[in-house]
């Protein structure tokens, strides 16, 4: 077993449980006994009492108890703790022996059986002579017992049995073999547990009692031993608090021991044991910080206790074990629910353990020289085959003196240990510890620590000569260091990896690592680089490379033969190396001259190469791979014949490529994948055997090999598109936009197509309220589309001009963006190649749409007085005011009224038919206006705009009066005025009329009259007025009242009557005649 010497003994690491021996059970042949035993063993979960049971034969020999020492006066202890002690109390000396015996209370042969049972008890007792071990008897009975006190026979017989066996009543149990076996068993074991507790309690007392006999000079070892024993018994008693206390005392005592080279190992071993126990209990008590503090203290105390310098590796091994077992304890506690953190997790302890194992390996290599022969006779053999005390030397057991008793024996012993150490597989141990640590650091988010440990693992595999595994690990972590740009560390890893690749004669890996070590990321010194480059060239020219420095000489010779085999094969020497994962010694960058090229321009690509290695390198082909493979043929440089291209160290070399894009790639992106085929890489004067292709997928790494795109865009159109129109557009009109297309091409523009209309991507409602047509002769309807696509316009000769009118009808107001897209194709030549280019030109224009005019309507009486309501059957006037909002003159066709100004008024005389229900409102209808722009041609369609007229309130009047008045009067000429009074009601109306006198008129007629008017009939009153003054004169006022119903407001009637009349001055006959003559 590797390092088994340093493993902690299992009896130390287990959880101590009370040991109870069961005798009298035949578990092989007796089914009942088997069932009982199974009930004890099976399902021992945490809720069961902690007891370890063992079935032993009735006559089993227990370890003999040595005679008790009465005095310690002359006693000199030989060591701290005997190797067998823990095991003895865990597995050999029971706290309680239980004798199982089949006996029913009413057994016919009671007497005989009772004495047989007593004999068996006696046998057990004899075997346990001198020990405090308790004995108990369990009677296995077939019958279910009666409740206590009822079975008189039973209680009487129980008493006699106790007497015969010399047992207390508490130590006799009955186990009825019935259905509830497990229940009985659990009750039994609880009782056993109590007995065991008592036993361990007495043991603790017994050990404690020794203390008074001890003195501090000779019995120092015993102080430690006793404290340890008390603590251990406390643990068996499950009193972990006290156990911890005693272990702590033991720990401080162990460090008080006089330490010298001969007993250093013993002290450290015991200190390690006790420390383990303390840490374990601390974790168990959920006080991990105490555990960590204890461990730190332990390490600080022991770190410098190296002991014998010739066996320094032992100290390292022991230290490693301390860390490892603490790590394991910590890990176990985490599994049971403890939370660890990034800076305090088991990984650190495993890592440190690995670190000490590395020290151990180093010291072993220094101290254990090869060639020494193993001493004979075997100095490490002991009589018993093992050690009596923990941590002692086999060749001087029990010696506690400062100097070794036999110098010769000491020498051979040390030599034997050294030779044994040589065979220890150190690397294996280190790797196991490291991989434990890796697992932990992975869990606690320490990626860099993890990488570091993996590097160490790789290096350890390298030392263990497992190069495949080493390379795998190193290769895995390399990229972490590469992306974090820790070049120093990367170089160190690469150097190890290169050694592995060399020793394995792995050509491809060797080339890759060489290339990276030559590159700019490498921190190697110039002479190293020179050496590596020389080796690389050797490999490329099919020669065996020189060995890497610091390689094991035997491995080197093996590697040399491997290399020569490999070189002799010389089969397929084509290697493709994906360099996006590496930083190779040739840097390569590419660049397009411009981020985008027109399709009729040649695309210009530049590739830059630069070698970072110390010697010039040559290559014979450089090719570039583009996303469209067809272009690749234009981007190749190949050396002609034997002459190869070379790169000088530190100098950048530029290669220019130019090619013409395909028309189908317009609008696409072309991506460059640099595929640097450095075929025949080598020095200018060497013929390369290996063809190394460096290629990189630029999509994956942009860091070193640049990813590049170029956009191919369409040719610049040589065509002009002009729009002329008269904004703003008027609502509903056929708005004319005239498009003028003129070609400036040198060739014929073919397939000219116009797309005109609302630019897509605007408010969705605009699409519904905008209509585009080419036909301006009539008003288009709602079926016309918002965008006219691809109207073919035919070919366009150079300089030719095309004019098209596009009519737009905007149903709603607001701004709109219109697009005019002219597309055509043209033949052209680029670098001697005929290509057909598609060109297009876009024009957009924003047009505001406004309402052409605003129409307002009012109602007035025939006297142009504003009306808020109209009377039935009485004429009134409707006046419309049309206010133009258009900046352009409009032609209102329907009224034939032509205005240059802003407003047009129309009057309509209306009469409202009588209604059944008066005083209601009535709709007055719609008003239709036909119009067009004044500037538009005469045959352009008229636009109908409909205005809904407002509602008007109707009322009916009982009387209606109107007058027949001449249009003017003349001074001192008679003027007859006839008033008509109509009764509009179904009743006879009595009307009183009076004419008030006036200064301007004399008049004849009834001055005051009362009259009756029949329903629906009319009365006429005739007056002759005789004007006295010229000018506008107020007519004599006519007062009308209805005496029958004075409430009726006759005032309203007055508005129907004319108020004034124009009176001309007196005429002159002569003048009239002269005028007539003229």
């Amino acid at each position, binding site marked *: 077993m590797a390092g088994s010497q340093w493993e902690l003994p299992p009896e130390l690491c287990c959880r101590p449980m009370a040991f109870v021996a069961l005798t009298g059970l035949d578990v092989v042949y007796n089914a009942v006994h088997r069932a009982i035993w199974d009930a004890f063993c099976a399902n021992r979960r945490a809720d069961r009492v902690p007891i370890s049971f063992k079935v032993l034969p009735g006559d089993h020999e227990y370890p003999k108890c040595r005679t008790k020492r009465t005095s310690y006066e002359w006693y000199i202890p030989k060591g701290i703790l005997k190797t067998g002690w823990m095991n003895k109390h865990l597995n050999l000396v029971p706290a309680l022996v239980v004798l199982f015996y089949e006996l029913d209370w009413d057994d016919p042969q009671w007497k005989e059986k009772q004495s047989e049972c007593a004999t068996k008890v006696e046998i057990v007792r004899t075997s346990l002579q001198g020990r405090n071990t308790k004995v108990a008897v369990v009677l296995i009975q077939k019958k279910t017992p009666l409740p206590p006190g009822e079975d008189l026979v039973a209680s009487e017989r129980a008493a006699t049995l106790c007497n015969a066996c010399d047992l207390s009543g508490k130590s006799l149990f009955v186990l009825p073999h019935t259905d509830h076996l497990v229940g009985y068993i659990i009750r039994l074991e609880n009782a056993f547990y109590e007995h065991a507790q008592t036993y361990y309690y007495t043991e603790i007392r017994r050990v404690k009692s020794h203390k008074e006999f001890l003195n501090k000079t000779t019995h120092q070892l015993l102080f430690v031993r006793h404290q340890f024993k008390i603590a251990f018994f406390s643990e068996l008693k499950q009193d972990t608090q006290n156990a911890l206390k005693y272990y702590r005392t033991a720990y401080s005592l162990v460090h008080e021991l006089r330490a010298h080279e001969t007993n250093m190992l013993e002290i450290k071993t015991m200190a390690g044991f006790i420390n383990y126990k303390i840490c374990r209990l601390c974790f168990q008590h959920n006080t991990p910080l105490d555990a960590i503090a204890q461990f730190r203290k332990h390490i600080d105390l022991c770190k410098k206790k190296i002991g014998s310098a010739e066996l320094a590796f032992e100290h390292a091994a022991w230290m490693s074990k301390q860390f490892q077992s603490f790590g394991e304890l910590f890990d176990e506690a985490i599994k049971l629910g403890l939370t660890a953190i990034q800076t305090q997790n088991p990984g650190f302890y495993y890592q440190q353990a690995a670190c000490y194992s590395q020290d151990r390996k180093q010291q072993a290599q220094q101290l254990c020289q090869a060639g020494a022969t193993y001493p004979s006779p075997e100095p490490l053999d002991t009589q018993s085959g093992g050690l009596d005390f923990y941590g002692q030397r086999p060749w001087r057991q029990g010696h506690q003196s400062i100097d070794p008793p036999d110098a010769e024996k000491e020498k051979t012993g040390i030599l034997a240990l050294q030779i044994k150490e040589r065979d220890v597989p150190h690397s294996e141990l280190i790797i196991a510890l490291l991989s434990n640590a890796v697992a932990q650091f992975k869990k606690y988010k320490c990626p860099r620590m993890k990488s570091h440990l993996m590097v160490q693992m790789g290096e350890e595999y390298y030392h263990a000569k497992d190069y495949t595994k080493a390379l795998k690990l190193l290769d895995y972590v390399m990229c972490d260091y590469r992306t974090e740009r820790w070049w120093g*560390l990367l170089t160190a890893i690469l150097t190890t990896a290169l050694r592995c690749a060399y020793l394995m004669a792995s050509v491809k890996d060797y080339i890759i690592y060489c290339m990276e070590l030559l590159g700019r990321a490498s921190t190697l010194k110039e002479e190293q680089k020179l050496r590596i480059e020389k080796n690389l060239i050797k490999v490329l020219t099919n020669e065996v490379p020189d060995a890497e420095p610091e390689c094991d000489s035997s491995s080197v010779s093996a590697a040399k033969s491997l290399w020569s085999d490999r070189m002799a094969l010389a089969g397929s020497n084509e290697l493709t190396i994906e360099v996006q994962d590496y930083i190779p010694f040739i840097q390569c960058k590419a660049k397009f001259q411009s981020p985008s090229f027109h399709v009729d321009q040649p695309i210009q690509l530049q590739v830059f190469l630069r070698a970072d290695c110390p010697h010039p390198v040559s290559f014979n082909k450089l090719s570039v791979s583009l996303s469209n493979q067809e272009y690749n043929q234009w981007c190749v440089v190949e050396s002609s014949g034997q002459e190869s291209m070379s790169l000088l160290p530190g100098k950048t070399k530029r290669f220019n490529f130019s090619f013409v894009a395909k028309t189908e790639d317009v609008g696409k992106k072309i991506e460059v994948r640099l595929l640097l085929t450095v075929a025949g890489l080598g020095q200018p004067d060497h013929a390369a055997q290996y063809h190394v292709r460096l290629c990189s997928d630029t999509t994956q790494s942009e860091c070193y090999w640049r990813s590049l795109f170029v956009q191919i865009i369409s040719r610049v159109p040589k065509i002009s598109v002009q729009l002329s129109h008269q904004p703003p557009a008027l609502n509903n009109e056929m708005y004319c936009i005239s498009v003028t297309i003129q070609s400036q091409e040198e060739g014929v523009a073919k397939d000219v197509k116009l797309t005109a209309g609302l630019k897509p991507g605007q408010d969705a409602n605009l699409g519904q309220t905008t209509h585009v047509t080419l036909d301006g002769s009539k008003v288009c309807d709602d079926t016309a589309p918002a965008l006219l696509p691809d109207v073919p316009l035919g070919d366009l000769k150079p300089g030719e001009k095309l004019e098209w009118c596009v009519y737009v009808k905007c149903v709603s107001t607001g701004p709109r963006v219109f697009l005019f897209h002219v597309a055509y194709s043209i033949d052209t030549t680029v670098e001697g190649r005929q290509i057909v280019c598609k060109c297009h030109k876009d024009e957009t224009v924003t047009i505001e749409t406004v309402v052409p005019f605003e129409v307002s309507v009012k109602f007035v009486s025939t006297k142009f007085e504003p009306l808020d309501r109209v009377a039935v059957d009485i004429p009134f006037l409707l006046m419309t005011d049309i206010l133009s909002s258009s900046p352009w003159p409009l032609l209102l066709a329907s009224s034939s009224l032509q205005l240059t100004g802003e407003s047009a008024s129309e009057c309509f005389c209306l009469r409202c038919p009588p209604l059944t229900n008066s005083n209601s409102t009535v709709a007055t209808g719609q008003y239709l206006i036909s119009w067009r722009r004044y500037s538009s041609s005469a045959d352009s369609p008229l636009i109908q705009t409909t205005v809904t007229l407002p509602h008007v309130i109707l009322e009916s009047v009982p009387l209606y009066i109107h007058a027949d008045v001449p249009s003017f009067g003349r001074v001192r000429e008679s003027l007859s005025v006839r008033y008509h009074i109509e009764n509009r009601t179904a009743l006879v109306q009595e009307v009183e009329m009076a004419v008030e006198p006036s200064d301007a008129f004399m008049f004849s007629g009834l001055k005051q009259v009362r009259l009756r008017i029949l329903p629906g009939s009319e009365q006429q009153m005739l007056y002759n007025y005789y004007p006295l003054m010229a000018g506008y004169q107020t007519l004599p006022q006519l007062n009308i009242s209805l005496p029958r119903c004075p409430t009726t407001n006759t005032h309203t009637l007055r508005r129907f009557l004319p108020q004034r009349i124009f009176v001309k001055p007196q005429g002159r006959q002569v003048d009239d005649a002269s005028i007539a003559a003229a």
Partner: protein
Amino acid sequence: MAVCIAVIAKENYPLYIRSVPTQNELKFHYTVHTSLDVVEEKISAVGKSLGDQRELYLGLLYPTEDYKVYGYVTNSKVKFVIVVDSSNTSLRDNEIRSMFRKLHNSFTDVMCNPFHNPGDPIQSKAFDGIVSGMMVQTG
């Protein structure tokens, strides 16, 4: 006094790293590199709770058997790492803090140099001098 002093860029690559010449330089590189795990964790933990109210000095990052590693992060996420021998118990937290402050000041001077290209390794005699003053004097 320190056995290793390092300046790490925002992107976690080394701008400056110097250790006592007597010991394995590579080991210190690894120590500094692995300490970045803790630095990153500490920065991200603070970022969540306090935002920009962050103390630059991160304190003891983690103790190894042989060394104590201290960290300091500037507001522009440039990290300073100082490695001290574990046996050196005379150094107090305050002294470590003042070492970091001095380092930071000197680093700021380097950055203020118009000929220094930010992101490049630090090659400054003044900075070297400050670092040398903090290192364990050997020989």
